[in-house]
């Protein structure tokens, strides 16, 4: 931070992002192989999909289920105990949906099922054969943000960011639900999403902006 309290203006083309910095560290670790350092050009490309090594041991009592997530069908083999949240994160590799309390109390795991927001930690993946599931990854991408994602950016609707995907999924669902015009109405319908950093005023401002522009 500079003396006048402002962050330095970013210079396009030369900005070192956290991601590119980390990728340099990673590459530097292999410098003995004389691999060239790769500095990503801006804007940063979307992160590569997270992949997990194939399970080596078979899952006991595994069941097969086809989950339609963000318009894409995935057939996964899971223990029946697997929650929808765990299937999204661990089986399909979509880690944008977060696990907070794992008991339906915090809202970090909010996704849409057939257009309605739910807590993905309190439902079993096996119960959702054929349902249309939307996660934060299905809303938009870095180059083409959903208006709610853009509004959260504009209004600084987060601090640590852990609750943010759940907040945004709830906020997008709210747009189609009966909701009065006031900030109090928005707060009431967002009460299932807890933000430990306390970004609530900015979250409400972001949602109200999207509602007013709709």
């Amino acid at each position, binding site marked *: 931070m500079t003396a006048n309290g402002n962050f330095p203006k970013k210079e396009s083309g030369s900005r070192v992002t956290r991601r590119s910095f980390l990728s340099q560290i990673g590459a530097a670790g292999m410098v003995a192989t004389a691999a060239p350092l790769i500095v990503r050009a801006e804007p940063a490309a979307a992160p590569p999909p997270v992949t997990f090594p194939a399970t080596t041991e078979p899952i*006991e*009592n595994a*069941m097969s289920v086809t989950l339609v997530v963000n318009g894409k069908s995935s057939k996964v083999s899971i*223990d*029946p*105990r697997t*929650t929808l949240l765990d299937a999204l994160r661990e089986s399909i590799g979509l880690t944008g949906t977060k696990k907070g309390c*794992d*008991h*339906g109390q915090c*809202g970090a795991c*909010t996704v849409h099922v057939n257009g*309605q*927001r*739910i*807590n993905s930690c*309190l*439902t*079993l993946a*096996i*119960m959702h*054969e054929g349902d249309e599931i939307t996660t934060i990854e299905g809303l938009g991408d870095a180059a083409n943000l959903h208006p709610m994602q853009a509004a959260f950016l504009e209004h600084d609707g987060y601090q640590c960011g852990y609750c943010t995907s759940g907040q945004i999924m*709830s906020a997008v*669902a*709210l747009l189609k*639900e*009966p909701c009065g015009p006031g900030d109090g109405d928005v*707060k*009431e*319908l*967002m*009460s*299932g*999403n807890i933000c430990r950093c306390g970004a609530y005023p900015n979250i409400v401002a972001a949602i109200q902006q999207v509602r007013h522009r709709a």
Partner: protein
Amino acid sequence: MEPFSYIRATAASQATQAAMDHDVRLIAGGTTLLDLMKLDVERPGTLVDINRIGLDGIEKMPNGTLRIGALVRNSALAHHPVVQSDYSVLSQALLAGASAQLRNMATTGGNLLQRTRCMYFRNTAMACNKRAPGSGCSAIEGDNRSLAILGTSKDCIATNPSDMNVALTALEAVITVEGSKGKRDISIADFYLLPGNTPHIETVLARGDLITYVTLPPPRPKAQHVYLKLRDRASYEFALSSAAIVAEVLDGKFSFIRVALGGVGTRPWRSHEAESALLHRSAEPESFRRASVDALREARPQSENAFKIELTKRCIAHALTLATRNA
């Protein structure tokens, strides 16, 4: 969570047959059951998924009643135009409960069977007669601030946590059940059991029973509906005390009155005492005060929840004030 086998039912009959096994639990919204399974409070050997057996409609019947399918979600029920216009106390109660996400999941039948939030019931390390019959009640000597003051016993003081059930009690709903004894209708007044010395038996449901419908009596066009919920937070919190009121006032006097309480009873609490104190009496503060006193006459507070007596009196009086402000 303990391992279980999973079966997806496609018809009600399939569910009722499977549920004859003592080790089976039916799962609909799952918001109570999976929560308790993660805590090892519930450990079913088999889960039968009833989400694809239908029973998800709301229908106005020829005799004027409203028949609600057991799998209608709480949000769909709360926002249904007939429920909003004719049974507003139910809509208000549903929207005062849980969060928008949970209301999209929780079902009408599931909410009827919602389990207590008593922290000792939810913790397998603690004694609890409801979870482990005969083990004792940790709550009576423990942290009982949120627990019941009406309908308690020396073995259990757990509160029924539902808002919906309080409104359904004031509306005198009828619960239709299918099972080994065939199809039968049970008045909500007869559905829940007091804990007594068998707090693990919470309803009159028998093994293999499936709730199929909840039916509301024909609407009362002149009735005022109020659900007032008092709690530690403004939203997303269980009731410390709540009151559901359905009231008709004619010439300044109550010509019809139903009062049910939440957050204070071991079951959704119909207050016949409050109703008797109000019927044919003037709709004014002195009547409300007398009704509140009568409603709490049998209250038995524990070490930390005596405040609920005064809170509930004020809850009833204020709910009656709201229900009669245009009378």
